[in-house]
């Protein structure tokens, strides 16, 4: 139970927030963006933080999920949940097929391959206008309903995205403490060492790649329904970079690090907007300061500091 105490605390905080601040813009509107970003950062962290495989194309899977939902529901009148499942299935097959050749690459080459994937998917969204609506995107997705209840208000979306977000965090925490998680960190340390220990590295890597893509795809479908609109720009290369920044900022390899990173990167632009023209400058300065003084990432560094202080206290007494 102690293992998950952090998670329980986090879940309680998420559930309590809308009751403490009802009808607050930062909770019901910005909160939704934060949740989606947390899901994406956590899923990217599975691949980058645990397995040490960089991906600069994570937004592509997010986008494929979103576009599958948009195209299937609007153009073909498919039930939203079925469309979501179809999108996930498509991403599953695609990521499975791509995983082996792509993950055979290492370092810069892997970064290049994933970057290429992201850009190809983005170009497809922009150019295949018959299907994707081109740069204007697609709007007017049907309302999603759960057990007969239409999810049509910010508050309802809060609960839906909150539950999915908590599930992803729980999933990610559990993976870290499982046989698969240990295999992943072995791969992170050294591919060859992991193989000599009897780990089927290419299988483990491709599994985590598929899992991470699937999580992003479902998040994309939910995002499309919540926004009621998809356009290629939400899934561009820059968004992939933003996701990588979230993971690194919070602390590579830590689930809560990804959560904190996603939270900060989503809330900062909203808060800093009062500075108008200086917004971007201050935003950049904050990121630089964090990375200079806390290079392990905000969350990881603070956690390490706290445990160090604590153990010193206990040692003295």
């Amino acid at each position, binding site marked *: 139970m102690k293992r998950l105490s952090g998670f329980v605390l986090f879940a309680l905080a998420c559930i309590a927030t809308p009751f403490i601040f009802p009808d607050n*813009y930062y909770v*019901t*509107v910005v909160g939704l963006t934060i949740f989606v970003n947390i899901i994406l950062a956590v899923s990217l962290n599975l691949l980058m933080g645990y397995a040490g495989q960089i991906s600069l194309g994570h937004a592509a899977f997010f986008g494929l999920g979103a576009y599958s939902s948009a195209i299937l529901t609007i153009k073909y009148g498919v039930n939203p949940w079925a469309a979501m499942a179809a999108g996930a299935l498509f991403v599953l097959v695609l990521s499975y097929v791509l995983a082996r050749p792509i993950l055979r690459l290492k370092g810069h080459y892997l970064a290049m391959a994933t970057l290429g994937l992201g850009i190809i998917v983005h170009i497809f969204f922009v150019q295949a206008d018959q299907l994707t609506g*081109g740069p*204007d*995107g697609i*709007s007017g997705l049907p309302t999603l309903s759960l057990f007969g209840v239409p999810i049509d208000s910010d508050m309802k979306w809060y609960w839906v995205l909150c539950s999915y977000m908590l599930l992803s965090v729980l999933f990610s925490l559990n993976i870290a403490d499982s046989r698969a998680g240990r295999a992943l960190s072995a791969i992170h340390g050294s591919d060859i060492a992991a193989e000599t220990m009897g780990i089927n590295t290419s299988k483990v890597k491709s599994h985590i790649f598929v899992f991470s893509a699937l999580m992003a795809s479902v998040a994309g479908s939910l995002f499309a329904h919540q926004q009621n*609109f998809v356009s290629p720009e939400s899934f561009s290369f820059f968004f992939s970079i933003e996701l990588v920044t979230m993971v690194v900022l919070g602390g590579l390899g830590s689930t809560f690090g990804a959560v904190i990173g996603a939270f900060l990167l989503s809330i900062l632009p909203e808060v800093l907007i009062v*500075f108008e023209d200086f917004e971007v400058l201050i935003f950049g300065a904050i990121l630089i300061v*964090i990375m200079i003084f806390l290079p392990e990432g905000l969350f990881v560094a603070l956690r390490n500091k706290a445990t160090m202080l604590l153990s010193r206290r206990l040692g003295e007494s």
Partner: protein
Amino acid sequence: MRFFKNIITLLSVFSMIFLTGTTMAQAKAKAKPLKIGSILAVTGPASFLGDPELKTLKMYIAEINAKGGINGHKIEFVHYDTKGKAKEAKNFVNRLIKKDKVDIIIGGTTSGNSLAVIDLVQRAKVPFISLAGSIKIVEPVKKWVFKTPHTDKMAAEKIFTDMKKRGIKKVALITGNGGFDKSGRAQCLAMAPKYGIKIVADEQYDNADTDMTTQLTKIRATDAQAILNFGFGKAPAIVAKNIKQLGIKLPVYESHGVASKKFIELAGAAANGIRLPAAALIVADQLPANDPQKKVLLAYKKKFEAKYGPVSTFGGHAYDALFITVDAVKRAGSIDRAKIRDEIEKTHGFVGTGGIFNMSPTDHLGLNLSAFKMIEIQNGNWKLLY
């Protein structure tokens, strides 16, 4: 010591966040002002559209407030820069509606930005006047959505009318990959047969490309009698230059998306001889004295140029949107969103910079083809043809 340093950095970061929170809370409204929200692409690839729009809005809102507001309601202006990104436009409109609680939204510099937020304003029932070109914004008519700039369909029709006059029957089309370009391309392809014009080439480039000679070489190989480039931003200037460099002698047409002095600056001598449809603003002083728009245009031009430099038609779209709003609020006698919307729809005979607006429940733009002038660039300047 190191640890303390880190703590201090963190504390300063967090205190900054909280400080901004409190200043925002203090900026609450006083009496009952009319809250106008705006989302414009002031930076980014469409900045030369968004920048004059913002300047125009700020300038006239300050003037209206100095005169005591509209029927006593001062205008409170909230603006966010979308950088031309649909995602940001969507976030900011959400913010304008749910946090700032504005009464009307003006903006959406680009078609992509405008189309992205239509759904939001429709659901929140907030009147929205778009400053973007695409006809998709007002067709089919959406209850809460209006726009002031001419549509791409009108531009295509105006261009084809002129081609027909010159006896041009075969046209090579070259367009970008932005929302404006794509929508314009679709309109050109749809309208051409009505004017007996055949599109013999249909080339596309990326708006970020720095060279279009490949596409133009292909066009050179066709039997086209004219080149039509439907685009905006810096790409059309590159197209114009490339046409000169390749020694292509065909007449060149551009869309109203380049009706800015910036285009002539960028294209230089290559701009001479290019024809385009545009609002009367850029040729205001060449209009006949009896033109009903002349007075409005010259007044706007004088005011804008005294403060910021050469006018472009884009700032004019913002002027039109603002004063259609002001008139609607005056007539409504209230700042109720629904009443403002009803009055905007009843706009009749409003003389703006874009033309004379006559809106109706079936027409949320209210301009006809006469609002466009055919212009040729001669010696680095606009010349009114008709």
